[in-house]
């Protein structure tokens, strides 16, 4: 699992690459400062190369979404695959996020 961050003015794009399984999510959640700071502004989560997400990965998404809600930021989820969309649907996450493409 790899996350590539790019910044353009106030918008941060996090390109998620690989499998966001439990061990990957645990590693990321220990080092979330940059993502959390971005979530307080505008954070695009580019999921075009995200192959898999477990509930621990969803927890990261939700944590960022809560930060955005409390700090006046914005999260946009971009390009989720049909299988990951299915997980979002099953868990009610489709209603919690702005999803593009």
């Amino acid at each position, binding site marked *: 699992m790899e996350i590539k961050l790019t910044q353009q003015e106030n918008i941060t794009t996090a390109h998620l690459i690989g*499998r966001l*399984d*439990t*061990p990957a999510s*645990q590693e990321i959640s220990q080092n979330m400062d940059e993502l959390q700071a971005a979530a307080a502004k505008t954070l695009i989560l580019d999921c075009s190369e995200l192959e*898999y997400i*477990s*509930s*621990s990965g*969803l*927890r990261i998404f*939700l*944590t960022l*979404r*809560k930060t955005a*809600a409390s700090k006046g930021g914005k999260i946009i989820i971009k390009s989720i695959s*049909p*299988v990951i969309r*299915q*997980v979002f649907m*099953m*868990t*009610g996450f489709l*209603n*919690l996020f702005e999803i593009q493409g």
Partner: protein
Amino acid sequence: MTERHLLLQNDIRQIPQLADFVETIAQESNLDQSMAMTLNLALEEAVTNVIMYAYPKGSQGLVDLEAIVRKDSLVFILSDSGKPFDPTSAPEADISLDVEDRPIGGLGIYMVMNIMDKVEYRRENDRNILTMTKKI
């Protein structure tokens, strides 16, 4: 009918081995990508629960997963010798809550129950035995 067996330590870094195990079964049974992914997800959630909570912190324990592959169904029997825990009686997550009220946890078991067609728990000989059936 074929049987497959996976034995893991209670170490979260072993999860990729589970993914390989599910992938092998998915290929053998010609499952489509969506079915393979959700199956992997349900099993990862169930196994993660055992790895994280069944045994006292810092102690070693085993997580045993047996798969029975039939033409029309897959049966997964997950067992451990940790403390008694019945996931089928855990309170159901409320997925209709808004961002502010939505708790961070509780989704794992919800997904297991949602993805599998049948989930049964029993405690036998000091072991937790969770039997999960998926029609294919």
